[in-house]
């Protein structure tokens, strides 16, 4: 065992009734290219120890980046004193759902270690993408980025768990921006502000951004001259990245049980999916089944054990359109007399674990994007551009990079600045098509924000295209 963890364990005061310790080390490499120039190469190392504990029935947490023995012992004692301070306002003792203690080591499987691909090779590839983007007349700004990480997390708790997990992943993307007068439009590939998964460098080779640069450049330029998004009630097809972000905001966040219980009320807000609606509320059409799945290989929300030592799971949130489940922790699950479904994670060693989305996925049904386009009179939207939603997760505004009008089953016209807005469940209830397995794509978001101080978490969303009928497009 790492000496720092042993010192931490040995320093726990006697009045602490439970403690967990996380020793986290993250290596990260970031490369950014813009307009044919390397704008930044950054190598980061981040390491520290965090301890969360219960004393007098309340939580305390302390963390230090210092590897010094005395600093670690002091930090552990500080966590206990923080817990004692918390107890001054408690209304009842914290109670935790049971779990099995586990010992083991786990590691991301990958083909190509991204840290073993030379900087020169990564830079050369990005510069070739950049050149391709700029080869399109009308592209004003070309950008590309690659980020890779290796995170090693050693978790111990006083219930006997001892878990080491190592995650390796990449996040990358290319973007073409066209500017003319007061008009600025961009297209990104992959169209989810890039793509990130817990996989090796082979992910970039498979997704092959170079082969998409010319197309996104041309689309960005076409958007400049395109007709503005009309305001009308129409049928809409959303591609997987837009479905992914819609799931994120309308299903992922409101099913976080800590939000439902009010513990995020000051910042992110609460949720309209309150406990009395569980197993009763029709959230979506019966085609819609959405699961939280931390077990699928490669997802940014995949792991083996969460930051409470609870095993990764797959659980249903929306089943055949009915709201049936929450994302839970040991403390919140206990309130509902359930076991935790294992969603507690912290961004870094110095953050308290919170309930976070894992991979929140829409289960596939049948059909392809081409098939549903062929059967639609309306619009197709692609590329996540922006999203805004209220503190109950009801009124949303989702902006796409690009839209196409579909006439008699064919894409006939590009439209710019497409937005949809309204009440989330009204849109989900109007879903009459969910694409099949062959059109299902898993995307990753590297920076979902929650908590105070804000923690940016890696989460995933898998989805096929969907169609929404008779919904409002444009403002």
């Amino acid at each position, binding site marked *: 065992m790492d000496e720092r963890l042993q010192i931490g364990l040995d320093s726990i005061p006697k009045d602490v009734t439970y403690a967990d310790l996380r020793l986290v080390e993250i290596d990260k490499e970031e490369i*950014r290219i*813009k307009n044919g120039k*390397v*704008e*930044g*190469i*950054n*190598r*980061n*190392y981040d*390491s*520290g120890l965090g301890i969360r504990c219960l004393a007098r029935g*309340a*939580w*305390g*947490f302390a*963390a*230090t*980046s*210092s*590897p010094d023995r005395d600093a670690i012992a002091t930090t552990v004692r500080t966590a206990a*004193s*923080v817990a*004692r*301070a*918390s107890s*001054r*306002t408690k*209304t009842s003792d914290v109670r935790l759902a049971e779990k099995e203690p586990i010992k083991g080591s786990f590691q991301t499987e990958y083909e190509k270690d991204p840290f073993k691909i030379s*900087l*020169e090779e990564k830079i050369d590839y990005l510069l070739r993408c950049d050149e391709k983007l700029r080869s399109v007349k009308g592209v*004003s*700004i070309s950008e590309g980025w690659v980020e890779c990480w290796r995170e090693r997390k050693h978790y111990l708790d006083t219930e006997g768990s001892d878990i080491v997990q190592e995650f390796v992943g990449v996040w990358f993307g290319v973007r073409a*921006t066209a*500017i003319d007068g007061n*008009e*600025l439009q961009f297209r990104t590939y992959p169209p989810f502000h890039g793509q990130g998964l817990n996989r090796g460098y082979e992910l970039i080779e498979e997704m092959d951004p170079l082969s998409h640069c010319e197309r996104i450049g041309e689309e960005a330029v076409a958007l400049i001259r395109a007709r503005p998004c009309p305001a009308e009630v129409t049928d809409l097809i959303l591609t997987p990245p837009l479905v992914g972000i819609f799931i994120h905001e309308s299903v992922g966040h409101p099913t976080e049980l800590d939000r439902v219980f*009010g513990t*995020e*009320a*000051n*910042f992110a*807000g609460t949720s309209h999916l309150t406990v009395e609606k569980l197993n009763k509320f029709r959230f979506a059409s019966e085609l819609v089944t959405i699961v939280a799945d931390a077990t699928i290989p490669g997802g940014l929300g995949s792991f083996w054990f969460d930051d409470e030592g609870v095993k990764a799971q797959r659980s249903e949130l929306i089943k055949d359109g009915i709201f049936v489940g929450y994302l839970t922790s040991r403390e919140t699950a206990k309130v509902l007399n359930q076991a935790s479904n294992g969603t507690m994670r912290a961004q870094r060693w*110095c953050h*308290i674990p919170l309930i976070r989305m894992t991979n929140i996925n829409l289960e596939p049904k049948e059909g392809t994007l081409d098939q549903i386009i062929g059967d639609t009179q309306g619009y197709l939207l692609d590329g996540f551009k*922006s*999203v*805004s939603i*209220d*503190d*109950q997760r*009801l*009124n949303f*505004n989702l*902006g796409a990079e690009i839209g196409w009008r579909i006439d008699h089953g064919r894409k006939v016209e590009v439209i710019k600045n497409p*937005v949809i*807005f309204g009440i989330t469940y009204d849109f989900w209830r109007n879903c009459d098509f969910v694409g099949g397995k062959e059109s299902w794509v898993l995307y990753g978001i590297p920076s979902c924000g929650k908590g*105070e*101080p804000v923690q940016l978490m890696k989460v995933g969303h898998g989805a096929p295209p969907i169609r929404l009928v008779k919904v409002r497009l444009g*403002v």
Partner: protein
Amino acid sequence: MEQYEHYKERRREGITRFANSMIHQNMVRDETESKVLYVVDKKIGISTAVGREIDPSLAREVASHSPENPDFVSLPDPDEAGTVTYHPKYSDVTAEASPGTRAELVREVIELCKESGLASAGYLTTGMVEVEIENSLGVNRSGRTSFAEFALTTIGSGSGYTTAIGYDLAQLNLKELTLEAIETAKRNVDPEEIEPGEYRVVLEPLAVDSLFRWLSYLGFSGLYYDENRSCFSGRLGQEVASPLLTIYDEPIAELPGMGFDVEGVARRKLILIENGVLKNLAYDSYSAHKVNKKSTGNAFMFQSPYGGFPFSISFLPGTTTPDAMIGSVEDGLLIKRFWYVRVISPKDGILTGMTRDGTFRIKEGRLTKPVKNLRFQISILDFLKSIGEIGNTLRLTGYGRYPHLLVDRFRITGMTG
């Protein structure tokens, strides 16, 4: 040519977070971060280390793998870095405040809310930051500041909100702030629905803060301006706002913060808009040197892809009292704060977002019923020109000093369910 900068920051803070009228997340953390930026023949490398000593040679080694960046001219030299005239304040009591001190203060807030039949959620943070900067051209800086920050949401059948920040815990009048949020929550019950459309609105300072943070991003980056992607590109020296509007960036004595940016360049007063005319933009050294300018002391990270930003925005106060503003509105809205503001179209400054924790109908110059949380969509450029009055008092926030604003046209597009 070889140049380097070494930046070191130690942050020690305690954050006492509460919800459902009890402390539920309570923490102390201590973190030291070192960064080195190394330039070898216009090849740039950066390394960062937390949790171990930084190896200065790593950034140099990273740089050696990079092609030259012809846009790089130089790190700031002592002449460009200037003389630091603002020296941050430091309160030992605030920097060293214990978990017990914070818990006791939070307990008093919780109890005050309970007496009004309201639940409470929020946080109280105290701590300190110390920074050291050295570059190979002779720029040397060091400084430290303490900080205290408080936020509170009061929750009954309606909600209210308040927040405050300072370098000293003693600056935060927690009782007064709590009573402010209690009063809003008590008024904010049984909200009514309104029709979408254009309204005259009075924005309270926290709402103004939200919009001007986004304006900083969309408009005041010199890099974005020069790349023609700022909503102000091509309009320097032109009228971009109501002639009533004068705003600037400068260090604020009551706020935590250093007298220099992350490159060691002294912070100074930078007038952004004066009497409605766009006067200056914010630069870090990299984006400034590309266009033969000097840094304005607005660097917030090494090699920022966004260039420099204002660290804060301060308004020149107007002459109208908030009550007089409300009194001048025949049919409109008072908006306390915004939530989840996002950009729909950056170049023409189209923003959307929601109102939160207190939106009230104004009828015949008087506040009447609360209304449900509303969605808005505006062009920030139209917004700037439709500012009708500027309040005569300023509220200190974490991002500057903000007045009430009376805005003649503000587009509401929907509301929460």
